[in-house]
């Protein structure tokens, strides 16, 4: 069978003309790229969940909140942790439990809600600690008692006990955002996905779920003028996708994966720059002290000495990160210059400890989150423990199951990673006796540690705090329940047209972003 088809009436010349035009057109860049159009486009690794600081779920929301709300103080961009005045014209520690402040007189709320007053500060802080609000961020406010309003723009923050993290977390981070009392009360006491009143250099003008959040310059802002007409914040959770978007010039800034650092060190596309910041996260291998198989301290110490941290960092983190000495990162009070167990494995000592323990045919399980760096780390640990005769079975768990492991009494070894805020108390809080079986999965119980944690939070002398937190980490390590691995890193790439303003851990402070 043969079917006849009519030829299309296209001559050779017409075809060539058409093909040439098509070819020429295809050489033109046909999509909107990041241009100097006054719009800053950055990646956020998640989508905005609320405009209410009381119910903020962390960095993702705070990146936006910090641009549209004001705080008494804000983090200073740069490489060292510090703070600078924002809504406060004056702020000082009156005594250990009283902090006096005075607000600037040029900050107002949108939607006709008037000037920012001390009543707004009182309302914002006290609603975080009120049980009725149900704020998951309440612990960040520590022992806050109340705020005394002493004038229209003056007031005093009153604490029940001294609280050093007030200056490092409570005021410059999530709980420090000041909302309008009048607007929030008019909205029934809870702010949803749309702001009720804003006061920062930018306004949140639109939000499309899982697509983008747009901030635009606040025309009534009297402070230093923000550099960008608008900021588009794109929720991209996949790091590779974000890198492709950056490489194709569609976004101006993104965190990149550690596996890509080497490539970006060699060349950042479109004239961009790679900034390598340390991170506050901490990764460690924990051992459940309540488990019958892990009762022997010599065995735990043998495991500590048999784990070769440099090999893990090379295999799982592409050599782009440094070993950690504990749970408190460099740059924060309490960071130890060295851990008690050196980063490199000492197999002879490990074998010796194992022999001393009297344990034979040791077989253990290691629970791991199913992410590449953790599975690789687990495999390296499996290989190194095998060298002293310990058999390790790796249990891969997806995030939901993994993060519910607190009450798993069968847990033996676990590879863990916690996020962190820039105060050492945020790290030690999870390892107290009270947290055993909740977030203290090792069931590490130590009275001295608990006392140090409580005392160091109330200590305002930085040198004394430093000493206390170092001792606390020594206690953790001496228990044999911990092998500290790394704090990871936050490599960030940015385009040549922007001057980023980053916290020391690489997170963006959008209100301070400039043009190159």
């Amino acid at each position: 069978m043969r079917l006849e088809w009519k030829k299309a009436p296209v001559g050779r010349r017409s075809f060539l003309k058409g093909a040439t035009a098509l070819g020429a057109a295809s050489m033109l860049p046909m999509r909107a790229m990041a241009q100097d159009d006054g719009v800053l486009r950055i990646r956020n690794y998640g989508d905005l969940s609320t405009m209410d600081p009381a119910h903020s779920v962390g960095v993702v929301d705070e990146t936006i909140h910090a641009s549209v709300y004001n705080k008494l103080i804000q983090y200073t961009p740069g490489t060292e942790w510090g703070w600078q005045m924002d809504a406060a014209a004056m702020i000082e520690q009156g005594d250990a439990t009283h902090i006096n402040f005075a607000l600037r007189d040029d900050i107002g709320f949108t939607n006709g809600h008037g000037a920012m007053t001390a009543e707004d500060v009182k309302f914002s802080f006290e609603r975080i600690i009120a049980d009725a609000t149900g704020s998951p961020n309440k612990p960040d406010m520590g022992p806050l008692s109340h705020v005394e309003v002493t004038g229209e723009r003056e007031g005093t923050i009153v604490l029940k006990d001294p609280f050093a993290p007030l200056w490092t977390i409570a005021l410059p981070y999530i709980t420090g955002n000041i909302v309008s009392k009048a607007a929030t009360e008019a909205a029934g006491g809870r702010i949803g996905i749309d702001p009720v009143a804003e006061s920062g250099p930018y306004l949140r003008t639109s939000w499309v779920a899982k697509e983008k959040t747009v901030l635009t310059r606040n025309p009534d802002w009297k402070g230093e003028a923000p550099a960008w007409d608008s900021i588009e914040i794109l929720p991209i959770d996949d790091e590779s996708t974000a890198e492709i978007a950056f490489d194709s010039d569609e976004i101006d800034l993104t965190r990149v994966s550690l596996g890509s650092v080497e490539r970006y060190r060699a060349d950042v596309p479109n004239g961009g720059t790679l900034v390598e910041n340390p991170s506050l996260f901490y990764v460690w291998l924990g051992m459940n002290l309540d488990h019958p198989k892990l009762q022997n301290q010599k065995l735990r110490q043998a495991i500590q000495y048999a784990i070769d941290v440099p090999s893990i960092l090379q295999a799982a983190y592409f050599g782009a990160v440094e070993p950690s000495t504990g749970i408190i990162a460099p740059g924060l009070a309490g960071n130890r210059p060295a851990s008690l167990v050196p980063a490199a494995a000492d197999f002879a000592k490990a074998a010796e400890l194992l022999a001393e323990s009297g344990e034979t045919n040791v077989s253990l399980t290691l629970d791991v989150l199913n992410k590449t760096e953790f599975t690789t780390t687990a495999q390296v640990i499996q290989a190194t423990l095998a060298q002293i005769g310990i058999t390790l079975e790796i249990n891969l768990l997806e995030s939901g199951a993994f993060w519910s492991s607190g009450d798993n009494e069968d847990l033996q070894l676990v590879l863990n990673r916690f996020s962190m805020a820039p105060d050492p108390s945020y790290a030690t809080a999870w390892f107290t006796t009270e947290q055993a079986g909740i977030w203290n999965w090792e069931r590490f119980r130590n009275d001295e540690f608990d006392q140090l944690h409580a005392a160091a939070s109330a200590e305002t002398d930085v040198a004394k705090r430093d000493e206390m937190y170092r001792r606390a980490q020594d206690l953790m390590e001496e228990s044999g329940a911990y092998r500290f691995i790394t704090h990871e890193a936050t490599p960030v790439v940015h385009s040549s047209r922007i001057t980023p303003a980053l916290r020391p851990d690489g997170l963006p402070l959008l209100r301070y972003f400039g043009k190159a």
Partner: protein
Amino acid sequence: MLQFTLKRFALAALILVVAVTVMFLMIRAVPGDPVSIMLGPRATPELKARLISEMGLDRSIPEQLMLYFGGLLRGDLGVDVFSGREVTTIVFEQLPHTLRLIFSAILWSAVLGIGLGCYAAAHPNTWIDRVAATLSVSFIAAPAFVVALLSLLLFAVHLQWFPAIGVGDGFWDTAWHLVLPSFAIGLSWVGYIARLVRASMLEVMGESHIRTARAFGLSERRIIGIYALRIAILPVVTVIGVGMGFLLSSAVFTEIVFARPGLGKLVIDSITTRNYPIVMGAVLVSTALFVISTAIADLINAILDPRARSGT
């Protein structure tokens, strides 16, 4: 025809009930405490207890299931306790993105696949047929995620012809943003449809009513376009109807790779955070989509081929 339609939709409703029940039980069988995951480590026990109560997790599973179906009958998919937004709103603001992606992929792959299949069938065992066969099999064999990544690197990063991420604003920009994701998930369907149409066409072209049409002197183009394709396309319609399910699952990774909003990404995010109301809402809508598309495919088959109505 009315009886056939009613039967088909009754079956669709039953499938929906079974699918929702299975999903409801499965999500609760998965280990992981939703309240701890949603509230994070700093939540107080009181706050956790409050959320457990708000989510109805303190009730028995059968009770929760009955409550869910009760809400469903009232058109209430529940509230996302975390954001306080209606699940219906959350799901339906994502649905159009997924539908646009799926239908654009079906459209271009069907047009190209049917054309390629017809052309190959019209020139059996010629070099054109062999080239078409090679292309079709290559398309089928190419995993969609590989196509997605390679097309991103070539067309978005290197040539910068198409955008790498997002969904765009306005009609043309949206269409422009659809090109690469739609290409990624539609490519294997081109090959699949082309092979199906070719085989079906060759079979139909040998049937007696086609010979009769030729004997009446009808042109080959008319015979193929009007008489042969109408019959040959039946399996394609069925396959596309069933294929909606595959395309929905392909949409999951496409939405992640291209950072597009959509139902697939919503489900993944919600399962990870054990956000039960949203998982159920999203699964209900995607199951409904699948069931409706297969039902519509059956109806189209019945319209095109009366034998399908009587089940012969």
